[in-house]
């Protein structure tokens, strides 16, 4: 397997598209109800946790891109191969592929749960799962340009939802924030830790990096995307704290969707129905990107044809989505996934960076000796 990966010129993407990719993949199912989870830990200071998690993310992304820049045009699969050798590298790659698949499953399952809870309690899981996965397969077989296109349109077309935030502001009570800094530091940090489930997604950089045209501009646009996402989360967190009382906030699972409930236009009410349906456009590119990353991993590690594995992985996703069928199961699964994701997304890049540094040092040392 080659460590370097140079895609064909027609598969290269303009670098600023990385902004859309990262922003899109971060904003997925987590945004629908992250407020409660953070609020349970950090109470009215939850917004500080959001800011902290944003800062932490910036640091991790910086390290990730630095790691990638050592290799010129390579992805995490190539780097693993270079650092760990053939066999351990393959194992690590499989782990990463598995992570991508599990993430797709989490997104898929959470969205299906929202639809079943809010819109169609009777519609079976298998139908929703199949219909969503068919769209995903149709997109992924079109290649990376189509996938990024969907995430681009998702952001452009879902901007109107931001306008709806104005409604709850009218009913907000700003005394809910007081007293500031009542929670202690560990509680706030715990809240930051709980943000993992919501903010992950930027690790797609590890896979998409070779497809970007101008590698030196990646830092700029990636950080811009992270900043915008953090601001969005901060806004929604502040809004939730100001609008809901603490008792209400602790009890509602999908706080953002509940905020949509109060939107009232002359010809339309209960905006959350439209928002939930529209959410399909938001989660479809996310699943596509993760599935694509997994399939690309199979191709890079074992040199297997990509198109077969799109179907095989979708089948795996479909079958496993049938087993996660109760709220409790989904919740425990989400929690366990968040814990694993914290280690893989927030801790592992630092370790990988250190390994890469050591490897480069040794290489340089050896070359000097010769």
């Amino acid at each position, binding site marked *: 397997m080659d460590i370097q990966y140079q895609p064909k010129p027609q598969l290269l993407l303009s670098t600023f*598209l990385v902004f859309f990719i990262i922003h899109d993949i971060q904003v997925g199912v987590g945004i629908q109800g992250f407020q409660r989870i953070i609020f349970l830990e950090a109470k009215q200071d939850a917004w500080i946790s959001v800011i902290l998690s944003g800062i932490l993310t910036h640091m991790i992304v910086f390290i990730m891109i630095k790691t990638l820049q050592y290799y010129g045009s390579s992805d995490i699969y190539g780097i693993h191969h270079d650092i760990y050798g053939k066999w351990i590298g393959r194992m690590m790659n499989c782990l990463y592929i598995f992570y991508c698949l599990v993430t797709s499953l989490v997104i898929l399952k959470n969205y299906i749960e929202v639809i079943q809870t809010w819109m169609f309690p009777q519609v079976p899981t298998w139908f929703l799962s199949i219909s969503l996965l068919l769209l995903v397969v*149709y997109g992924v077989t079109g290649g990376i340009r189509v996938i990024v*296109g*969907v995430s681009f*349109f998702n952001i452009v077309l879902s901007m109107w939802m931001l306008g709806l935030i104005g409604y709850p502001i009218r009913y907000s009570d700003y005394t809910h924030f007081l007293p500031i800094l009542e929670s202690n530091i560990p509680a706030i940090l715990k809240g930051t830790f709980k943000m993992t489930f919501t903010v992950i997604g930027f690790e797609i950089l590890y896979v998409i990096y070779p497809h970007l045209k101008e590698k030196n501009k990646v830092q700029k646009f990636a950080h811009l995307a992270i900043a915008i996402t953090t601001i969005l989360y901060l806004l929604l967190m502040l809004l939730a704290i100001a609008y809901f009382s603490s008792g209400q906030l602790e009890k509602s699972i999908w706080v953002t969707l509940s905020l949509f409930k109060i939107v009232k236009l002359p010809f339309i*009410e209960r905006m959350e129905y439209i928002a939930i349906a529209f959410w399909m456009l938001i989660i479809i590119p996310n699943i596509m990107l993760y599935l694509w990353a997994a399939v690309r991993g199979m191709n890079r590690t074992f040199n297997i044809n990509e198109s077969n594995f799109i179907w095989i992985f979708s089948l795996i996703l479909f079958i496993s989505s049938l087993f996660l069928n109760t709220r409790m199961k989904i919740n425990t699964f989400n929690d366990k996934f968040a814990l694993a994701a914290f280690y893989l997304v927030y801790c592992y890049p630092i370790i990988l960076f250190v390994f890469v540094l050591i490897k480069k040092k040794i290489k340089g040392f050896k070359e000097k000796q010769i």
Partner: protein
Amino acid sequence: MFFKKTLSTNKQEKEKSKDADNIIPTNRERMSLEFRRRLQNSADIVETEVPGTGITLFYFHTLIDMNLLHKDIIEQIKNQSFHSIENIMGQLSVGIMDKTNQMDKVIQSAIGGHVIIHLEGADKVIYARIASNTGRALSNAINESQVIGPQIAFNESLSTNLSLIRKYIADPNLSIEDIRVGKRTTTAVSLIHIHGIANQQMVDILRDRIKKINMDGLIDSSVLVQLIEDNSLSIFPQMVLTERPDRICSWLLMGKLVVMVDGSPQAIACPQSFLEYFQSMEDKNVNWQVATFLRLLRIFALFLSVYFTAIYVASLTFHYEVIPQTLLIPLSESRARVPFPPIMEALIMEFFIELLREAAARLPTKVGQSMGIVGGIVIGTAAVDAGFTSNILIIIVALGALASFTTPNYSMGNIVRVLRFPIIVLAGFWGFYGIMFGFCFILIHLLRQSSLGTPFLTPFYPPRLADWKNSIIRLPLTFTAKRPNQTRPEDVDKYNPSVAKEKE
């Protein structure tokens, strides 16, 4: 080895005899026999002997201009004696003529509207082109009419159409390439581009695609489109047909390629983006504020006509909650007598509108108009009175149909109407989820398409901010001094904006 040799000599001999067959007989009777034999002894073959010269003319009287034949050929050569055919050629006053000794060439030119001049004893014949021009005169553009701007449309004659283009673009770099398509029809197909603006790679790809066509006949350019577009399985056409010469010329100047087929009044232009189907030539002719308004209106109409009925069906079947109470009362009142579920009701009405439209399109113009109006009002009102549908649905369906007629391109208008049906069915079965599924599917489908290798959703994706100035909006001409990225032009600048804006 020996065996092979005999085979090859056999082959050579065969070719030799074939060549001998192909040589023109010097004798008049034999020439006549051969000519008639090869052309299946058609009834419209005429053989005229020019008195006192030993010259015989062979031609199809259906293909040539008889006046020209008499004035330019028979008048010039009668009652003279000629020793060689070069002498005859000197006497004739025909622009396009040549000599040959090949029978194949003779047959080909006779079919193409040439007269064959045969001199007794000479080993070559002359073929001179005096083809008659049958066809209609140029007329107004009816299918793509506009108020401001040129009114002329292409007709069925390729040479007339090409002369129209030449008149608009008097540029030595305008390149017209002749390609023959169809084994039996050998239809003339012209590939037109402006050298130095159009991307050469695209020209090569398109030429290749046209040359690879292996069909018995090509009658119209709309068939050619289906043969050369990137994905003919898609419902969206990736190359556009137009009957307007001014439109074709402005596209040529943008760096697009144009294909014209002899006998077809519509030209093919490519690469084409999805958005361009919702732009009209008139947008360039009116001022930019109005053009922007009209373009936004058309995009709005697109969404209205595809999704409005579906939203009605979805909200009445599953999501009563999204309708405010004040609106719910008139809705339920008008639906109180309707026995069908909303999806049936909507499908019946949509089907009815489609019937009306199709009937109006097929009938002669005058009958069609009155039929449309009377049928619409009478059956529409009666349907409500009989309790078949609700008033509100009729408004919605009519709005959707009206909106679909705003699409400037006829074939795209059809597609917009067809797309409505699967979306309504999805909405009737799975509500907003179904509508969104349809929307996502169309979006992904459009993203997957390309037109001559360029993305179909350009300039929105891949995003080319510079080209957004002339997309669903149109900024003043001084802002759009560069050619669009879509055609990957070799010469980017249309004009120098600072000079163009200068006033004295």
